[in-house]
Each structure stands twice: as structure tokens, then as C-alpha cells.
């Protein structure tokens, strides 16, 4: 039932970077808009109609997800086996949301936000690590 410490460490690290990413995006937005760059369109993405859900910025949902993942990794690392296995559904949901949001950036907005793409990459990494640790646990059962 125990996930390998290496995978737990990797999941925790990705979630830590994700927390920095989403917190940075939230704090930067507070200090004014991000300029529209020639090569991207960060502000177009974060001010688009797809950016908030029920009035809540997507960055906050991302923060909640990374906080959950980080917490689970810490609990697993502290000897509470099975914590990472609880992440299967949140990680799956985050992956689906990341694919949808990246698709919206590419095909609807035709603008990219580097922080959002970074978050999509992190949640994809978390998904694969969580799924592979599920295999570890099942193998031990």
C-alpha cells in the first residue's frame, strides 16, 4: 500500500511549484494587468470569459488542487500510507481541465498564458505520477 518515497517526493515537488505558480499569478494580478506581449497573450487569457468559474478565478481552483496534492504527499511521506491514492480522482479531473483549458487557449482565444501552460504541464506530471504510484500499491497488495 506504500508509494515509493521518490514518487511521493516528485508529487510533492510538482505541487509545491504549482502552488508558487498559482500564487504568483494571483498576486501579480493584484498589482495590475500583465501587458499583452507580441509572442503571447497572457492578459487575454486571464481576462477572458473562460478565466473565472462562478466568479472565482481559475488560479484559485488551481491553488486548491496543488494544496490538496501537496498535503497528500506530505501525509504519505510522514507515514500515512494511502494518502496519494486518494488523489486519483482530483488528478484525473485536473488533467481533463488542463486539456480543456489548453484547447481553449489554442483554438478559441488563440493566445497563450505561460503560467497556465506551466500549470497544465504540472498537473499532467502529477496525474502520471499518481497513476503510476497506484500501480505500485496494487503490486504490493
Amino acid at each position, binding site marked *: 500500500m506504500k508509494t515509493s518515497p521518490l514518487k511521493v517526493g516528485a508529487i510533492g515537488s510538482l505541487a509545491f511549484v504549482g502552488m508558487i505558480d498559482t500564487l504568483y499569478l*494571483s498576486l*501579480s494580478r493584484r498589482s495590475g*494587468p500583465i*501587458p*499583452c506581449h507580441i509572442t503571447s497573450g497572457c492578459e487575454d487569457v486571464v481576462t477572458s470569459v473562460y478565466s473565472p468559474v462562478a466568479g472565482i478565478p481559475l488560479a484559485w481552483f488551481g491553488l486548491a488542487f496543488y494544496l490538496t496534492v501537496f498535503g497528500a504527499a506530505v501525509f504519505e511521506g510522514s507515514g500515512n500510507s494511502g494518502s496519494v491514492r486518494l488523489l486519483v480522482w482530483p488528478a484525473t479531473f485536473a488533467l481533463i481541465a488542463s486539456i480543456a483549458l489548453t484547447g481553449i487557449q489554442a483554438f478559441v482565444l488563440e493566445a497563450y498564458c505561460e503560467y497556465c501552460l506551466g500549470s497544465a504541464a504540472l498537473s499532467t506530471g502529477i496525474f502520471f505520477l499518481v497513476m503510476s504510484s497506484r500501480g505500485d500499491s496494487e503490486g504490493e497488495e
Partner: protein
Amino acid sequence: MSKKSRRTAPKQASVAKSLTLMAAGVLGALAIAAFLSQGAEEAPETTGARQEISTATARIRGPEHATLKLVEFGDYQCPSCRFYHGIVTELFERFPDQLALEFHHFPLASIHHNSVFAAVAAESAGEQNRIGEMHDLLFDNQDLWANSPNPESVFISFAAQLGLDQDTFMQSLRASDTESRVLLDVTEARKLQINAVPAFFLDGRPVPLPPNVEEFERLIYTALESR
């Protein structure tokens, strides 16, 4: 000590340890994010050498002999430019006699598909001496046309709202000369190596984007004092 309490004590310690680690992690992430975003919150100063900006296509707002000239390179479809339009409008109220705005077009056509056409609409209104009003309408109603498949009808409705001669406006809107004037500004922006909009120059010097009107006001006071 009972068997039960002997079993729960290590578990409680483990949970406490986990919670402490979690709190430390969250605080660490918050500290790093705050440090990284600090640059954006610090009060900016005008930086760099004074730039020679061509005034061949400049559109001036404010008093002709204003003490200070604020040059803006902007894109009507850019959300940040709309935000700063509000700030610049506020600055005009605070410095009615001292400040003039020289607006240059820099539409980022690759990400803002209607931006060149919007700049052409502003220029077309300018041919009837109403560029300032069209400039305001374009920014204030960005949502109406920014992602519209047919922005022309919106621009025509703005022209009607301003009481412009419709035939003249339509002719200007479709004239290649009008677009050429917009593209002259784009050439000027590239010459100045501008890579993001809005880009401001105060008294010829580039200004890092102030986060709010108060910071922008402070920059203007500093520039006025140094004259």
C-alpha cells in the same frame, strides 16, 4: 497508559508533523511567489535613455503646449491597454493643463485579429477630427467588437453615435492610405524595440507600467519637478 492511547499517540504526532510540514510548504510557496511578484508591485521609475519618437503619425490629446508629453503605443483590442486607458483618462483629470497624450498604434495582429481594423476605424474618425472620441469608444466598448466576426458594423455604429458623415467614414475605413498610417506606427514601435503593449514614454523616456493611477501620478510629479 491504556493500549488505545499508546496506539493513538504516534498517529497524532504523525498528523501534527504532516500539518506542520504542510504549513511550512504553503508559507514557503507564498514567500517565493510574493518575492517573485514583488518587482511588479514596486514603484517604477522612468528608465533608460531619452528616445526620439517620430511624431509624423502622432495623435495628440490634451493641451497643445502641455509641459509634459506622455507617449503611448497601444492596441485597441488589448485588455491591458483598456485598463490603462482608464488610468490615462484619470490622469488627464488630475493634470488638465500640464499633460498631453501622444497615441501611437501598435496592434498585435497575430493575437488580436480585429486590432488593425480598430486602429483604422480610429484613424477614419480622425479624418473628421473625432479620433479622441472614437479612441474612447473603442476602449470603453472593447467587449462589443474584440471577438466579433464582423467588427465593421460595430465601428459604423460608433461613427453614427459620434455623428460622423457615414460615407466619408466608410471611404476612409476602406482606403489603403488609412491602414498605411497605422502601419507607419507599427514600424516606429519595432524601431523602438517595443515588445509589449501598452508601452509608455514620459518625456521621451520609457516607463515601466505603474500598477495604479497613484503610482503613475507620482511619476508625472517627478517628471514635472525635474523639468
